[in-house]
């Protein structure tokens, strides 16, 4: 996957401000390879749509440059960029039928009638909506509209497709189904896709790479597994998946091992990621499924005392809520196995983990 500065889409130190006072996008550097499925993930207001709009040409960057296939994009008006776009609320034209909606990009490209009809039919079949060509958008369900919007964005065979939270309005089941369909389509057609969402599961399941946005910056850009297992800072660790965070101070660092003294005085092992010197404040992050009860980790390993607050039965897994180091939002997730102990509220246990599973991040 090409991720060098010579990518298909390149954001080069891009900044954006709407009002001249605050930067909505601060120093964005991003390179997207041809055929890649990249997701922009982040909380509301973090600047995802703004990035997409700059790429599509509806907003101009205040500073920096965006390159599309090596050409600065600022010189190309929106309608010449050939970028397919699926909008948050689909933006299907209500006064046209589904078929007319799909034919629109072909008409403005002056394709002849028979080619148009053939392409529209193929695109409708692609999203399994062949029978709905004569309907108006208002006569379709949300999921059907979504598929039409997708077909319309793809019908003129763009090389790049932008999707802004296209599944936001759908129910869970349909959303999962559509996630699958979209990724399949994108990969089978070999289209470069920039996908915006603030649903992390969606981001993880669909993407080749995920760019986590916060506060106008990319906090981490990595494939889904790396993002989950090796978050680079406390925000990403917290934002992606379930996470236990404890704060403390670095006691000592030895290679890829460090000891952290938590705020209640207990000592615990971790892997230094964002810390370099003893005495720095840090937030350690450990996934709930990597915590062990009454661990047997070796002689010099540290453990923590914990009190069980709640046992939650969830079918395939158990969730146990604990009070650890003065915080009572510490979760442990264990698989439902025959030999798995079920702890009761009020019990006292020892917990621990492998040092490489626990990451000492920024404070």
């Amino acid at each position, binding site marked *: 996957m090409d991720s060098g500065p010579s990518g298909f889409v390149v954001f080069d130190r891009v900044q954006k401000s709407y009002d001249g006072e605050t930067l909505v996008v601060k120093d964005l550097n991003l390179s997207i390879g041809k055929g890649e499925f990249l997701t922009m993930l982040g909380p509301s207001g973090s600047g995802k749509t703004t990035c997409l709009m700059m790429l599509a*040409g509806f907003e101009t960057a205040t500073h920096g440059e965006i390159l599309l296939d090596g050409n600065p994009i600022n010189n190309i008006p929106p*309608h010449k960029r050939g970028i397919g776009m699926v909008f948050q609320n689909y933006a299907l034209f209500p006064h046209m039928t589904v078929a007319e909606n799909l034919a629109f990009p072909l008409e403005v490209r002056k394709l002849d009638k028979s080619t148009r009809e053939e392409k529209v039919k193929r695109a409708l079949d692609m999203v399994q909506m062949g029978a709905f060509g004569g309907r108006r958008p208002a006569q379709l369900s949300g999921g059907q509209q979504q598929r039409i919007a997708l077909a319309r964005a793809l019908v003129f065979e763009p090389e790049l497709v932008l999707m802004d939270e296209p599944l936001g309005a759908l129910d869970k089941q349909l959303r999962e189904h559509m996630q699958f369909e979209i990724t399949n389509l994108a990969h089978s057609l070999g289209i470069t896709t920039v996908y915006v969402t603030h649903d992390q599961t969606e981001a993880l399941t669909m993407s080749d790479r995920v760019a986590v946005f916060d506060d106008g910056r990319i906090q981490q850009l990595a494939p889904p597994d790396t993002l989950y297992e090796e978050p680079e800072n406390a925000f990403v660790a917290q934002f992606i998946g379930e996470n236990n965070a404890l704060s403390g101070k670095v006691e000592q660092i030895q290679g890829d091992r460090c000891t952290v003294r938590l705020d209640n005085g207990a000592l615990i092992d971790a892997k230094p990621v964002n810390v370099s010197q003893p005495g720095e404040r840090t937030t350690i992050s450990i996934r709930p499924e990597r915590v062990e009860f009454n661990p047997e980790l070796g002689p010099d390993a540290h453990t923590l005392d914990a009190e069980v607050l709640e046992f939650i039965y969830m079918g395939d897994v158990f969730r146990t809520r604990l009070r650890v180091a003065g915080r009572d939002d510490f979760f442990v997730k264990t698989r439902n196995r025959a030999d798995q102990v079920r702890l009761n509220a009020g019990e006292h246990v020892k917990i621990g983990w492998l040092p490489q599973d626990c990451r000492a991040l920024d404070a």
Partner: protein
Amino acid sequence: MTDATGPDQVTGATPDNAIRNADRADNGPVLAADGTPLKRSLNRALRREKTRALLLIAPLLLFILITFIAPIADMLFRSVENAIVEDTLPATVEALDEWDSATEELPSPDVFRALFFDLFVAAEAKEHTQLGTRLNYEQTGISSTFRSTGRGLDDIGELYQDVFEDQNELWEEADFWYAMMNAGDGAAAGDLLAAERARMAALTDEPKDGEIGFAPSATIASILPRTTREYTAFAILTALVEEDVVAEEEPWEAVFAALGLDLQDQSLRAGIEGYSGPGAAELQAALANVDSLPVVDYRAAFIEEDDDWGDPEVWRTLQTYSDRYTMGYFLNSIDLQLTPDGIQSRPEDEQIYILLFQRTLIMSMAITLSCILLGYPIAFLLANLPLRTANVLMILVLLPFWTSLLVRTSAWKVLLQQQGVINDILVWIGLVDDANRLVMINNQTGTIIAMTHILLPFMILPLYSVMKTIPPAYVRAAKSLGATDWTAFWRVYFPNSVPGIGAGSILVFILAIGYYITPELVGGTTGVFISNRIAYHISSSLNWGLAAALGSILLAAVLILYWTYDRIVGIDNVKLGG
């Protein structure tokens, strides 16, 4: 792939379908908890709600009915109503029925005699000029005929009066007459009195039910029918209109004329001779002297009063318009007229209304069009500017609403007149020669300019509210799909704003078509609308029937346009707001 919504449509023997079938096959209608059919108890529950809702809106409904529907209904009625002819000249209309208008001969003397008695009463009630005015709409000049004849009627009556009074001084006595005509203790002719009350009520358009201190004697009514009838009419008007005492007033000249006719009537002779009530001696004496009574030629007498009575055309008009309801006003509204030979177009120089209707329609369309052309970009700006700027602009749009219509129109006079600001500037720039200043006021240009300005907000507001609801994503989507700015606008934005254009156009057009003040002030003669003519007929010529007919046609035109619009565009496509 499953549908996101909608029930599953599996047919066949599924458990669900089995339950549904069982439900359906169950014993007849579904019952509510108390055993009544569900439908009935639902209806009852809904009725209660409906009644309450109706009570809530009742005051408004009444208000609208009284102030809006009723005047319109009245207007529609007035446009065909024509009772005045029959109410004023009932006997004449009846007698004239037999006259063949195709001949060049005048109606028989009987008709003239009936006219004398009808007109005499009408003149006493001061209603004859109104009839003259009404008929004058149909034939110019009749009005003055009626007015001058009204003054001469007394002379005809006096021909008889003088003879009677020469015979016996008693005929001059009010109380002698009263004693003779009044029923007193004897039987009263109640039917006659009621009939006369009704005739007078129709004539004066006021009820005549008050106490008059007189009841015609049944005996005298049978031997002197004409006299009793006239005297009763005299009594009613004297008591209720003049508010005098009947017994103290000398009867009209027409009563003497009627008495003369009764005495000259051979078939009444025996009755009078056998009469023995009050005034019997004087009556029988007069009967004995019947030869000294004049035999009046009413036809000649009328023609002497006014030559026009000798013109069959006058009688034709009277006969044509004697029906209680008439198409006359409507025909008049479209430059036609009802003649004895059928419907014909009016003389060239009297044709005006078709032209005015056409002008009103065409100019209203021009105004609507210029409102669209001016209003669309403004509404577009308003809908797409940042809110703060848009609000300031919106105030500017609404500003005209806060100044008086009169002031605004007068301002245009100042601007547009030949020595006005615009001409001055054009001359100063050198675009227009000082000798050839543009004429922009007191003509159609002036009306169109001033009315466009006044009606513009009515176009902008609905357009704005529709444009506000068009998501910006539509245009963006169009552009991302490859459309140029213009294509995106024309193919996507514009079609979505059409409902706003529709709503604005209907508003502006309907307002324009009935506009009055502005065309009156800046329209001159070539720029006035049909409504100015309506106003003229209501306040100056007082031809309310014609005004009502013109108004009804205007109303019908608007309704037809509205209907056509509904058929073509669809009224649900009209949006006044989100």
